[in-house]
């Protein structure tokens, strides 16, 4: 492949045949970014050209309820994740207690479990017919009161348990980056431990906590599976209903654009909350805080709190899924199409991962070689999809694909005199396109991050040592970015497997993946049947969390080594 160096000069080892009159990378990068950004642009354009009939209909039927539900859900989940995530981060960075080293990364693992999985497990577990209530009735008689899990409180509980790791991870990083001497300075000025937390550590970590909070709320807004089986009406549920219930794509698009507006508002709020102060550490070499040993009941309380969270968000769901899976396996009506769903899932996941990494390489090299603002803007637009709910992307994909199908059929009728069929919307192409629009940011970021390791002087060194541009790519770049490419592929692959709403809205008729199967069973309250596909998704979801945990633990190790101090 020609790099810019090839076209730009140095004829010593240059291949004249590879020289092009223009730079191919920026053009390619721009083109890829534009294609991937199409769905987003479609939804945005429907926001600026609203259809008044549909809006007034939506207003009369459900709009107020949707907005109210979305706002309360954001506030509830936001409050929950900040409390839980920040508290646990402070606990594990500043204190030593039994099991801290294990909890430190066990607490990240709930990220691996999609919200709809914990959602349906909790629903099945705490429901009227579930083991908890049945057991209580057996002991205390039939009149015993128990809170209804399928309620606002239940949704908030489930989403808090699933999404707190975003805040936990970012707050933890922020606390670890704070210098021990900054906290000591506060104590020398008369502040107690609690005052140090409120007056110094927390304000310093605020930008990170707000970033984690906004990620968590974005996930909450994007969730479909949980809110749907809890009967809590939000935008994703409404989009699904008007799409499949009423076949009203226009209304779905309008709802999607409103959901997009919410996401945008969230982003704006996050920006403004960061405030004016730029939180540099002014020191050259920061010594990270040394944890304090907890003793007696405090130590056990800390372990107990961490165990409760890990138990509720990880052990209970996974354990219950195992029990249900085994029960389902033993029964005669075992879902014998399970291998087919796994294969389908692997196909869409694998295809998307490969395409996403390829597209990311094009965009990343385009950015690196051109330094053009246009290309940079394209890259940012293409990455925006990650912040958008799958339902919005799905709506944005369907409109252009339906147009392409119509155009293709019109052409087919002219050429062959017959319909061409649904070439785009009827195949997994649309699905892969939607996944790409939603998850490209993951692969772009990992590829870009690994390309940073390749400095321009390495290119020059390689060329001066006699390598051709292709040789530079093969022998210098590829070995250095291989790890990044793999990580990017895994991240995309796993997120595709977990994605429910976009899959439901765009899958070709009869094409079923694991996530689709989980939805089909849970929407009918067949918890046991849903367990095996759900367990498979959870197992795949552990992959990126393990990658994350490894790098996170590594940063902690660096910190412990650095904490020796001067005598």
């Amino acid at each position, binding site marked *: 492949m020609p790099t810019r160096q090839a076209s730009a000069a140095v004829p010593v080892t240059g291949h004249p045949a590879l020289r092009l009159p223009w730079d191919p990378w920026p053009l390619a990068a721009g083109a890829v970014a534009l294609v991937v950004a199409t769905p987003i642009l479609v939804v945005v354009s429907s926001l600026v050209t609203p259809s008044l009939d549909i809006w007034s209909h939506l207003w009369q039927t459900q709009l107020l309820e949707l907005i109210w539900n979305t706002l309360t859900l954001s506030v509830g989940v936001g409050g929950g994740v900040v409390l839980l995530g920040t508290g646990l981060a402070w606990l594990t960075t500043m204190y030593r207690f039994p099991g801290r080293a294990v909890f430190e990364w066990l607490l990240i693992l709930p990220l691996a479990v999609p919200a709809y999985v914990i959602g349906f497990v909790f629903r099945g577990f705490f429901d009227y017919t579930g083991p908890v209530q049945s057991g209580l009735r057996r002991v205390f008689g039939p009149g015993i009161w128990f809170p209804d899990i399928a309620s606002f409180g239940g949704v908030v509980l489930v989403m808090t348990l699933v999404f707190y790791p975003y805040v936990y991870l970012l707050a933890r990083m922020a606390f670890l980056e704070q210098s021990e001497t900054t906290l000591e300075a506060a104590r020398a000025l008369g502040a107690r431990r609690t005052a140090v937390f409120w007056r110094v550590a927390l304000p310093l970590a605020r930008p990170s906590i707000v970033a984690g909070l906004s990620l968590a709320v974005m996930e909450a807004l994007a969730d479909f599976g949980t809110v749907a089986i809890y009967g809590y009406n939000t935008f994703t549920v409404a989009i699904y209903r008007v799409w499949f219930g009423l076949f009203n794509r226009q209304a779905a698009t309008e709802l999607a654009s409103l959901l997009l507006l919410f996401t945008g508002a969230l982003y704006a709020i996050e920006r403004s909350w960061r405030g004016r102060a730029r939180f540099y550490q002014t020191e050259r070499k920061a010594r990270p805080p040394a944890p304090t040993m907890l003793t007696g009941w405090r130590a056990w309380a800390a372990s107990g709190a961490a165990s409760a969270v890990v138990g509720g968000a990880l052990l209970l769901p996974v354990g219950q899924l195992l029990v249900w899976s085994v029960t389902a396996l033993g029964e005669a009506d075992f879902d014998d199409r399970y291998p087919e769903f796994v294969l389908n899932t692997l196909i869409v996941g694998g295809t998307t991962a490969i395409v996403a990494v390829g597209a990311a390489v094009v965009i990343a090299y385009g950015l690196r070689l051109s330094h053009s603002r246009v290309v940079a803007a394209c890259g940012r637009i293409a990455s925006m999809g990650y912040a958008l709910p799958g339902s919005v992307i799905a709506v944005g994909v369907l409109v252009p694909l339906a147009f392409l199908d119509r155009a293709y059929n019109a052409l087919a009728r002219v050429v062959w005199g017959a319909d061409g069929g649904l070439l785009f919307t009827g195949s997994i192409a649309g699905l892969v396109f939607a996944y790409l629009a939603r998850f490209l940011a993951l692969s772009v970021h990992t590829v870009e991050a690994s390309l940073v390791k390749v400095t321009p002087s390495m290119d020059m060194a390689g060329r001066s040592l006699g390598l051709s541009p292709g040789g530079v790519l093969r022998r210098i770049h590829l070995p250095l970015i291989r790890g990044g490419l793999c990580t990017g592929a895994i991240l995309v692959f796993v997120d595709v497997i977990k994605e429910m709403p976009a899959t439901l809205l765009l899958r070709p008729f009869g094409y079923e993946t694991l996530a689709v199967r989980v939805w089909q069973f849970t929407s009918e309250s067949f918890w046991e049947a849903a367990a095996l596909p759900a367990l498979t998704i959870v197992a795949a979801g552990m992959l990126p969390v393990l990658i994350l945990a490894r790098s996170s633990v590594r940063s902690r190790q660096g910190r412990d080594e650095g904490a020796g101090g001067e*005598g």
Partner: protein
Amino acid sequence: MILLSITHLTKRFTPHDLPALDDLSLDAEPGEIIALLGPSGSGKTTALRLIAGFEKPDAGVVVISGKTMADRKTCVPPEGRGVGMVFQEYALFPHLTVEENIAFGLRPLDPRTRGHRVHGMLETVGLTPFASRYPHELSGGQQQRVALARALAPRPALLLLDEPFSNLDADMMVQMHLEVYTILRELGTTAICVTHDQEEAFMIADRVGILNQGRLEQLGSPEEIYHRPATRFVARFVGKADFLPGRVTDEGIATEIGTLLNTPGLPAGVQVEVMLRPDHIELIPDPMGSAMVLTRQFRGPDNLLVVQLRSGATIHSHQPSTLTLHPGDRAKVVAHPTHVVAFLATKPWL
């Protein structure tokens, strides 16, 4: 009256290693500035952190203003000690302005007093125009002034400074030495300053304590430390020192460059090593002299010469910049020590 009293303070970080701080005892009078000087790993920072309350001593007692802060039973936390501290990296709070940083420790005061105090401190350190800046918008010297003002604002009985000048450029450092010294003197603050720079210690301190491997080797005025070092380590650490073998006789201490006064009062007959500072060594150009100039470093105001004696021993000498001696020239060596310092010889001389 004693403001700070430390007795037998000991701290071990690893059970089987040497203690980081071993049996340190010292008292500070009100208004006194004491520098703890030593190489890295000598225990000076540990001593400071024990006084501040960031570490708990394994043995020993810390008493500040008559109140026991740490002993076998009690260990008052740092926030309860009323001790100000200036950190090596300043440790300013990056999310607070200069003004808010200085006001941080003034929570218990009412807002009016607090405002007065902050403005007073800003004026003292000359940062009034920068009150609403954030720390990262300041230069290194300004950051240090904020750190000093923040530590002094609550009017602590005792101020601890941990290598406060080591992050500054050379020019700025000299200026800040003087400024900090003036401010501390003006406010009459008692201070303990930890440093590895002997010039700095001599410049700002009333008394200097030399630490080596956790032990206090000597505590005394800068002049005492420099001219009458108690150990070879102190002699070498606070300036250039050469050691010449000598033998105590009835007349004094006989050395290769002449007989020196037996001011330490050593018994006749013992073998010693006499410490000589370069500024005590005079060189007189003399073609028949017993010493030969090896090297000459011209340093502007003076020259530093190394001469070799007949025995092969080398000694350093400071000479005026007008000196005409060059490498290869011969000279006569005369010693004029203000106070003869001799240590018992560690090995027999041939």
